[in-house]
């Protein structure tokens, strides 16, 4: 009896080993950069990113993908951080994100990433709100509700810096962006940092004041389409199709004719608001609708200065990983070959190649 069960167990162990081996064989190489036909990109809802949805539903992305003989699948995710995590894990070839998250999630995770399209920057879309007070200095001593370690946290750090204060003077309460509007309604919540559309919802409440916003630090919270550097290098067609599609979408949606209004109405609905709501969010966004503007911005020295400041904040909050010895641990590359941080460890790159092609009508 005993021996038969022991044999059974041994046999089962062999079986388990076989299963494990076959799983291993199935999984194949991870994130290998090779020429391929099918690409997947992910997007989440934000004023500067919903145009990707229009590109998908209108067939513009398919048109450009067909032109270069590839397929691009566009997937909407509900959770922003999850979408970046999925991209970092290798489930997507490209994903929308901010410059700070690109540095702290994929780049810090060793996934070499490229900002293929510099879409826009926040010019008032992120803000600090106080209840019953209209002066930023009144924030000292308060508990501040925000998504910790996000661009909101960065904005708060910049704001505190501007009044000669620091995070020591406040208490940060990590609050989910999905629940921050209902949190704002609670009596014991007196200070918040968030972005649109939540920001617009909260200031509708009585006696709430925006005491600081991203328009005071323009160009520091940049919204990008980030793609895997290896995949892009092996598949220039992917970059060309994406850039071509994006600037065609831009040229249609920014018009004030019937077609442009129709597109923005749809985008408003997708974002959970309407045409007026979407247009008001666009007002606090510096959207680079022309490729030439985006190229000029990507080449400007301001971006390097911003990335240094973001790297400093990220390092101080442990976001560059435990292995990071200084804020210069991860290198960031810029058009023209400039690098900030470690030149031997460049994991995040601003690349204007494809935006330039779009600007020069070479796509």
């Amino acid at each position, binding site marked *: 009896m005993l021996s038969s069960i022991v044999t059974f167990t041994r046999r089962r*162990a062999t079986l388990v080993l076989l299963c494990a081996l076959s799983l291993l064989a199935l999984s194949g190489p991870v994130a290998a950069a090779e020429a391929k036909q099918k690409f997947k990109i992910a997007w989440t809802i934000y004023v500067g990113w919903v145009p990707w949805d229009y590109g998908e539903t209108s067939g513009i992305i398919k048109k450009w993908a067909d032109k270069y003989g590839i397929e691009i699948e566009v997937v909407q995710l509900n959770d922003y951080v999850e979408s970046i995590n999925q991209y970092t894990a290798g489930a997507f070839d490209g994903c929308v994100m901010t410059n700070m998250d690109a540095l702290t999630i994929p780049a810090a995770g060793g996934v070499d990433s490229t900002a293929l399209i510099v879409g826009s920057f926040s010019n008032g879309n992120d803000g600090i709100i106080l209840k019953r007070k209209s002066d930023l200095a009144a924030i000292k001593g308060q508990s501040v509700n925000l998504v910790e*370690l996000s661009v909101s946290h960065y904005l708060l750090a910049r704001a505190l810096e501007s009044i000669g204060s620091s995070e020591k003077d406040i208490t940060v309460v990590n609050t989910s962006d999905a629940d921050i509007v209902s949190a704002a309604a609670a009596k014991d919540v007196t200070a918040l940092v968030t972005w649109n559309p939540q920001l617009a919802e909260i200031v509708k409440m009585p006696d709430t004041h925006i005491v600081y916003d991203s328009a005071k630090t323009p160009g520091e919270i940049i919204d990008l389409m980030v793609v895997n550097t290896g995949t892009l290098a092996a598949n220039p067609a992917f970059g060309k199709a994406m850039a071509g599609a994006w600037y065609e979408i831009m040229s249609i949606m920014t018009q004030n004719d019937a077609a442009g209004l129709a597109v923005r109405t749809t985008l408003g609905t997708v974002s959970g608001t309407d045409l007026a709501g979407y247009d008001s969010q666009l007002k606090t966004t510096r959207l680079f609708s022309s490729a030439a503007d985006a190229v000029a911005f990507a080449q400007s020295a301001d971006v390097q200065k911003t990335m240094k400041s973001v790297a400093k904040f990220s390092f101080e909050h442990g976001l560059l990983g435990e*292995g990071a010895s200084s804020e210069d641990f991860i290198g960031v590359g810029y058009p023209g070959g400039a690098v900030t941080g470690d030149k031997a460890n460049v994991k995040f790159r601003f690349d204007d190649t494809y935006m330039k092609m779009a600007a020069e009508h070479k796509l």
Partner: protein
Amino acid sequence: MKRLINLQPPRICAVMLALLPFVFAFFAYVSFSNERLMANPNDKLLPAMSSFGAAIERMALVPSKRSGELLWWVDTASSLRRLGTAVVISSAIGLVVGIALGALPLVSAGMSPFVASLSMIPPMAVLPILFIVFGLGELSKVVLIVFGIAPVIARDIQGRVREIPRELIVKAQTLGASTWLVILRVVLPLALPRLIDAVRLSLGAAWLFLIAAEAIAATDGLGYRIFLVRRYLAMDVILPYVLWITVLAFTMDRLLRFLGRKAFPWHHAGASV
């Protein structure tokens, strides 16, 4: 009879069989992790065992640079305090309401459908209301858990009380017991062991609501830490925390079972749950 349902594994075999899935999971993890780390040494998704060791040491043994606290233990203490408070309150509510509903037809007629409806409301769906009524501090986190598990416990106790043989109640009355005495001497001793079981079964849900509450707004706690470091995909911290939560939950379950057996030996005569 040599049939599959009659085959009992010898004790040593049973232990091995029990360990097997754990060992398999461990080796599957290590092989997948090695593979990903081979392709990208900085991969954060499936860190190596050594990274877990470093992360646990950093969180549990080295004071945090920013606050000087041992984060692992601070998080554990906060979470256990919230969970403990909520479970004690829920048990008290569940026991009192459950007995009242089960033993008193008048109360049952008036309140039973209401409690049943209440227990069907997904607590996460009424979060904005909880925030406005109870604020965003410790209270709302405890209330979320209580709201989630107390009605379930109450209904379980109610069911148990209704299962008490009518003869027992009648017998106590013929011996002269008042309503109060019947509840105290017949209903309560039969309901208490069931309370332990109901709490054990609710613990899973209680943890779920605790993690959810801490993910939404908090400054410490196990759920807070997991959702915070998720922002930069620090699986080297998340996975040990998940394992730790499992260990804590398992220990609590075993402690409750032990308590139930010690306190109510009559209930467990012959049973092996």
